[in-house]
Every structure is written in structure tokens, then in C-alpha cells.
């Protein structure tokens, strides 16, 4: 399944400046792994040492926070919009 991931400005150094990246994945955990494969260093920026999404990162699927869904196990499907946003002051939609 190919979904579009929106990447915030501070992470675009890892994506050659691209703000929107297509990624194949069936859930968020796999999406992060695949991002890491294509853009090494991404996982360390998104996840803490124990592999959970960092406290100050929010991930939204179609505008819904994954914490309202099944967190890392939240499924993604073709055409979904995934946004990675810094959490401070509500975060950033890009």
C-alpha cells in the first residue's frame, strides 16, 4: 500500500528537501521502518531508544492522531495522508 507521508521542515534534511514522500506500508510501525530504509537516520529522529514515537512528535492519519487509533499498529491504506508533526503547541500540519 502506498501512502503519502508529510515531513516537517526539520526532517527534510534527511529527505533531500522533499516535504511529501510516498511510502509502502501496512501500518505505522512498518511505515517508520520503510522510511528508515529509504532515508537513513529517520527512525532515530522519530523514535526514542525503546522504539516508541518520541514524546514530542505527533503522527496523524487523515488528520486523526494515531493515539486515538491503535498507535504503532494503526493500519494505513492506499491513499491515506500521514503527517509527522512536532507536538509543541499543538504541532504543525505541513
Amino acid at each position: 500500500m502506498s501512502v503519502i507521508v508529510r515531513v516537517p521542515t526539520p526532517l527534510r534534511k534527511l529527505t533531500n528537501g522533499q516535504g511529501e514522500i510516498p511510502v509502502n506500508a501496512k501500518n505505522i510501525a512498518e511505515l517508520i521502518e520503510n522510511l528508515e530504509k529509504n532515508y537513513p537516520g529517520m527512525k532515530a529522529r522519530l523514535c526514542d531508544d525503546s522504539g516508541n514515537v518520541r514524546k514530542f512528535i505527533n503522527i496523524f492519519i487523515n488528520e486523526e492522531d494515531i493515539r486515538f487509533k491503535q498507535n504503532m499498529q494503526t493500519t494505513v491504506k492506499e491513499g491515506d495522508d500521514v503527517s509527522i508533526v512536532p507536538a509543541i503547541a499543538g504541532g504543525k500540519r505541513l
Partner: protein
Amino acid sequence: MSITKTKSYTLGLRCRECLKEYPIQPHHVCEDCFGPLEAVYDYAAIKKVLTREKILSRKHTMWRYQELLPLDQDPTVGLEVGYTPFYRSRRLAQTLGLKELYIKNDAVNFPTLSFKDRVVAVALSKAKEFGMNIVACASTGNLANSLAANAAQAGLESYIFIPADLEQGKVLGTLVFGSHVIGIRGNYDEVNRLCSEIADKYGWAFVNINIRPFYGEGSKTYTYEILEQLGWRAPQHVVVPMAGGSLITKVKKAIKEFYDLGLTEDASTKMHGAQAEGCGPIVHAVIAGNDLFKPEKPNTIAKSLAIGNPADGYYAIKAIKESGGWAATATDEEIVEAMKLLATTEGIFTETAGGVTLAALKKLIQSGHIPPDESVVLSITGNGLKTQEALVGKVGVPELIDAKLSEFDRIYKKP
């Protein structure tokens, strides 16, 4: 103003999470780990100049603690803010069965009747230092009022973004100052996300976004005043309303700073947080024993506290736990009852958030988290005149009579 500062005591900004350092700039998120940035002070230098005598010699405003605020120059906005009433409660204390209860009343803060005047005074003074001429905020109401008023006085253009369903008093009390007010069809968390985008695109001074490391520091003065007004002493308990969770973390910071500077001799205050049951992500995390909160979709009459994804939620949970405090929520009904209780025992008309705080205090006494013989400060941070909708139909109506003595005799005898 009478205070003349010879130097700045702010060294820079630092990430609270990974400790990466940044220069003083309108920037609030760490580029590496996305943690929040905060101001770093030269406390050794402050300790040499900021004594009790020095503070006592200054004007009764929030700026009497100026060295502990992140400005590089003397303040230019909100010069009269702060130093609100603090006093020992008699009738409410008696009703609650508390031996030593104090009320810190920012419902009468100047100019817009809430504690937000403190944060705005610092944020706008800082925005002017940065040379930013357009100021803005995302707000649940009180910040909107305060930013609009202080920007008007400072001659700054302001843009204010609010959830469209805010109380009329708060909307009118923003429009009157000539601000550009934009109502968003959505809740505060959605307003905030939009504002982050606008801040990025337009480069305005969003006080609670890119100016946040400076803005938040202003609320420390609420607690400095409590400590000074209590006779340079820290209370055993303080109960604080929580929306984004910033205030309670600044209560903690202020208590520690005064202790470290030798201005008080104790810093063991237990901090207790209050939220509405219909929007209580921080309280629910504390009670469940979690370090992280789960965002909630707000459904409460306490609109000023209706932030489901609190920016400082993580640190608020930490502050409560580390201090040995606890947390409680209030239902809409309990909020209204508590507003009426404060009004009828202390003559203070607080907004819904104050009702939340007092309702939480009652529960914390019942649950034994606040023992009746220990000193407690109740934080009242907003004014009831702004949220009158909450009480419509709940406080009765005036009795109507003709202007005749016999008419009055009739109704006076009736009860």
C-alpha cells in the same frame, strides 16, 4: 519605570529534553529531538542582586522579579500587570474544613482579569525586542483578551485565532480592542495546529508558539507573588488549573528558583492539578500512573481549559508526581456548584476554570491528598464575568415587584 536593569540575566535557550543550546531567538522547538526550548538564566549573577530587600523596594507589579524574566531590556509592554490580591480565606476554609487556606486572585489581574496578562506582558516585550510588529495567538479566550488589550496599548497589530464557539464575553472582550479576530470552525487543538502553520509562513510573533519559551516564563510571577505574600514561605499545597499544563510547571519552577536564590527556606510544596472531567488528559494520566497522556476530545463548559492535546502535558504530569501532589477532575455540575460556593463564601466571581480548581480541591480533601491541617493555596486565574453563560438559569432570577413598599413587604414576609 523605576526599575533600571544594568544587564540581562538570560544566557540563551536550551532544549528541555536533549539540552542542546540555542541563541536567544523566536524559536521554540529543538531541531534534533523536537523537545521544547526554555530560557536559561545566570542564577549566580541573579543571586547577587535579587534580595528580599531589593524586591520589597520595587513597585507592586510582576516586574519586581524582573531579573527572573527572559528580557534583555527593560519591559515595554504590560508595565502595570500583576501583584494581585492574596489573602487568607475564612468562610471558604471553614466550609471545607481547612485550617489554613489562602486564595491568590488573578481574576482581578490588570488589564484583562486573568493570569494571562502576565505571560502576554513578557511575550510582547520580547516580541518588541525582536523587532516583530505583528503579534498573534491561538487562544481559548483569556489569552485572546489579554493579547488584544496589551497589543492595543503597545501599538502593535494583533491577529487572534479562537475556536468559533467561545463564550460571547470573551469574543466581545477581544474585538473591543481592535484586533483582527478569526474564529475557527474547530476545537482549540485544531486552532493551534493552524496557527503553527501561519507562524511558519508569515513569521509573526505567535506568543504561545514561537515566543513560547519567553511567554511561559511570565506565569512564574504568579507564584513569586504567592511566596512573597505568604511571608517568604512556600505553602504545603497549591491547587492549579491546567489547560496546556504550562502554569503548574512554572509554579514548580518558581518555587525552586526562590529557594535556590535563598529567598525562601522551603521548596517542598505539593502541586495538585485540576481539569474538567470532559477534558482531563493530564489528570487522567496522573491517576492511571502514566508518564504520558492520551489526547482527548474536549467536552466541558470550562472552555478556557478545553485543550485535549496539552503542549506541556508531559511536564505537568512530571511536576505533579515529583512534588508528591495529586490531581482531580470536575464535572460540569461540580464546576457550577464550586463557582457558586466561591462566590457565596468569599465574594469572588471566578470563571469556569476557577470552579474546576475549587471542585478539585474539595475532592483532594475528601480523598486525603490534602490534609485539613496543612496550608493550601487555591489558584484563581480568571474572572466569572467572562463566562456568564455557564451560570444562566443556575443562580435564580430577581424577584419582580412594583415600586411600592407594600409590594416589598409582601415578598419580604413570604419566606
